Each structure stands twice: as C-alpha cells, then as structure tokens.
C-alpha cells in the first residue's frame, strides 16, 4: 500500500532564504511519525509546505492527491494543522475558534472536542486570547480535531505546556491514533516523549533529512542521544 503522505525532494524558501533543500519523507496510514531537529532545521517549514502555507517545489502527495498549493484544499481533503505558536484567534471566543475548525465539515461536532477537552465547555464564551498559553495550545488541538482530519500535523505541541499536560497531550494523540486510526506527523523538541509515542522518526538538519528510522533504532543512535535525549 502506498504511504498516506509522501514528500519527494521538497524545496522551500522564504524570499531569498532557502530553508528546505530536498526533503523526502513518508507517513503510512495509521502511523505516528515524529520529526526532530535543531532550531532552524526546517521542521516547521516542512509542515507548512504540506498544508500549503508556504510555496514549495517537489512532490507532496496525500492519499493519491497533490498537495502544497492551497491550505483550504488540504483542510478539505483531511489534513489538519496545529501551527507553531498555536495560531488561535485571540479576539474570537473558544466556541468560535472551534466552529472555524469545522469550517470544512458539514456540521460542527462540538461533542468531539469536548470529549477530549471537557473544560472547553465552561470557557465557551471566553475570548481565546484570555486563556493561558497552555490552554490556547489545547484549544488549537481541539480546533484541529473539529475538521475530522485523517492526517494531523502537530507543530511542537509541548510548547508552553506543563510536564503533566505534555504527557496528557501525547496520551491523547496515541488514543486518537489507536482508536480512530488518526495518522499523525508531529514536530517535537521533547524527543523522549516524541519517540515514545511514534513508530518512526526523521531527524532534519539544515533543510535535509539527516537520519530516519524506527523510533526504537533512533533512540540507540549516538548523535540522537547526545543532541536530543541527553544521555
């Protein structure tokens, strides 16, 4: 079976600054795959290229269809993106943020978000900008789930979250993966928890894939241990 998502030789740049120099990676249907890499390696840009938020060249294929031009098209065919730094609409209420997440769905299914984040109900009329940083991160994830995606792109979900909550978020990702077959591509600096919760991983360096393999094998790699795991 072909992978659900496949990138081949993807290049991207911001103005004159080239960020991706030929990234190739694949995510199988039903897998959780993590992406590690130092600051500036191109992790965020890779996710942005997939959802079409930045123009790229090369090939990005999702479920047999070309991606990479239009974020709306990506959302319509089942790709949800939780961007770096959350990207919640701070002037809108919690409920309005969720409803926007369901923009491509026939009818917003709030119960689905509430099932995983019950506290959102009591905050439904609060402006998102008045939530704490961590709460906004959770709202961004809930909003992404509202589109009932097949592929979830998660950009550093642990950013701004307390250690306990980081664990909860990754438990939730695992649950969604196991129970609902959600496929996940996650960029994460907390390499320990990312490798624990993914089957395979890629290490990006300077806009290229430097290493790839099963999470178990990467854990044994000397350079991964030194740079990402700290033991």
């Amino acid at each position, binding site marked *: 079976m072909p992978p659900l998502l496949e990138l081949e030789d993807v290049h991207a740049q911001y*103005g004159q*600054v080239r960020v991706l120099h030929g990234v190739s990676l694949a995510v199988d249907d039903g897998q959780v795959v993590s992406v590690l890499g130092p600051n*500036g390696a191109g992790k965020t840009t890779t996710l942005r290229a997939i959802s079409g938020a930045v123009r790229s060249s090369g090939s990005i294929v999702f479920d047999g269809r070309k991606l990479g031009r239009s974020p709306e098209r990506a959302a319509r065919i089942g790709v949800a993106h939780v961007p770096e730094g959350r990207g919640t609409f701070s002037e809108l209420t919690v409920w309005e943020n969720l409803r926007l997440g369901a923009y491509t769905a026939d009818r917003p299914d709030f119960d689905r978000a509430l099932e995983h984040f019950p506290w959102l109900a009591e905050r439904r009329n609060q402006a998102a900008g008045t939530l704490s940083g961590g709460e906004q991160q959770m709202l961004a994830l809930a909003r992404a789930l509202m589109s009932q995606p097949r592929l979830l792109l998660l950009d550093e979900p642990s*950013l701004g979250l307390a250690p*306990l909550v980081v664990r909860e978020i990754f438990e939730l990702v695992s649950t969604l993966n196991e129970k609902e077959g959600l496929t996940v591509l996650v960029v994460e600096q907390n*390499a320990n928890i990312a490798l624990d919760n993914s089957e395979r991983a890629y290490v990006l360096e300077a806009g290229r894939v430097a290493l790839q393999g099963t999470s178990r094998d990467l854990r044994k790699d000397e350079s991964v241990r030194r740079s*990402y795991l700290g033991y």
Partner: protein
Amino acid sequence: MALLRLDNVTLRFGGILALADLSLEVQTSEILGLIGPNGAGKTTAFNVITRLYRPDSGDVVFDGASLLNTPPHKIVRRGIARTFQNVALFSTMSVLENVQMGAHAHHNARGPSEIVDYVGLTPVARRIVRGLPFGTLKRVELARALASAPRLLLLDEPAGGLNHEEVLELGDFILRLRRDFDLTILLVEHHMGLVMGLADRVHVLDFGRSIASGTPPEVQANPAVIQAYLGAE
C-alpha cells in the same frame, strides 16, 4: 536584598482569581524559577510586574519603591525588561531594528549591534524577523530586552523551540548573561532540566497561589508540587 517583591498581590478577572494573595521576593543577582501548571498565573505575574495589569490589592516593590504608580511604558526605564512566551516582536522589521527598539527608551552601554553579536545573531542581523525559526525569535527577544540595560530580566519560556543540546547551551548562556550584564532573573519555564539546573531558588504557583518555594531539590521532592505539576515519573 530583594530587588523585586510582590506583597500579597491579588488579581481577579471577572469571577476568576488569577493571583491569590501572592507574595514572592527576587534577591539581587539571583535566578528565581517560577513554575506551575498551565493557567497557574505565571505570565499574569509577569504582566503585573510590567504593569500591564493592576492588582486589585497588594503591592509590587522594585528596588525599594512601589511600581504601581509607574505606567507600563516607563517600566523599562526603571530597569525591567521581559521576553514573551509566544514571541512579541515587530515582525516586519529586521533583527537589528528590533534590538534597536529595545534601546529606544533606555539603553545599554553596549550598543544594539554589539548585543546582537553577543547573543550570536550577527549572521541574521539584517534579516526580517518574520519567517525566522522560533528558537531564533526567542533569542531576538532576549537581545531586545538586553538592549534596554535591565537590572531585572523576566524570561518567559526561553527554551521554546530548542532541542536538548541547544537547551544545555542556553543554560550556560543565561549564566554568562547574568555575570556580564549584572542581572537578576525571574525565569518561567516548563523545561525542568533547565529550571532546576539554573535557578538558585524555585517558586511554585497553582491556581494563582504559592504552593511551595525553596531550592530546586527541595521543590522537586515536594509532594504538592509533584501532584500538581511534575507528575510521578
């Protein structure tokens, strides 16, 4: 001597008690870690110190005088600078221009270019900030704060966007900063390796209240902190 003191600070947003009778002290030259669950009031405390919020009761005392009569735009002249959790830079300006903004109201003996160099941003000094990697943006914010010659530096999650090795370097870098710029530092951070390695003392908030304070080992062994925040490994 305490450079900064919060005395019984209480702040409500509607029905929510954001800070509940919070008292804490930051001693001159110390690094105080401020940790706690999401929504505990850490960033709110920063916003009270920088006068974006006025407490309903209590006082904020900096260098022996209350800050409550200092408007937010004059806080930087009192010698307080901060960074932001989710980055608040001038996104269409260059790195160097952002740092120059930091020197606008109050400036360091080291000029903006020298500070850009000190923090290692010279290679991107002329780049527009938008589109730079998150970890780099955090470094630009730090440089902007330093350019205003602060005595007290408030760091809101400086480790965001960095891998393990880069966080280790950041720890060494913050210690060097404290020495070279004569700083007192209040540090909000969820990366426990960084906080526990850097902080002289740690203060723990939960639901706007202090639940513990002490040295890093004391706080890490505190059952209330483990339950509310760290979780059992």
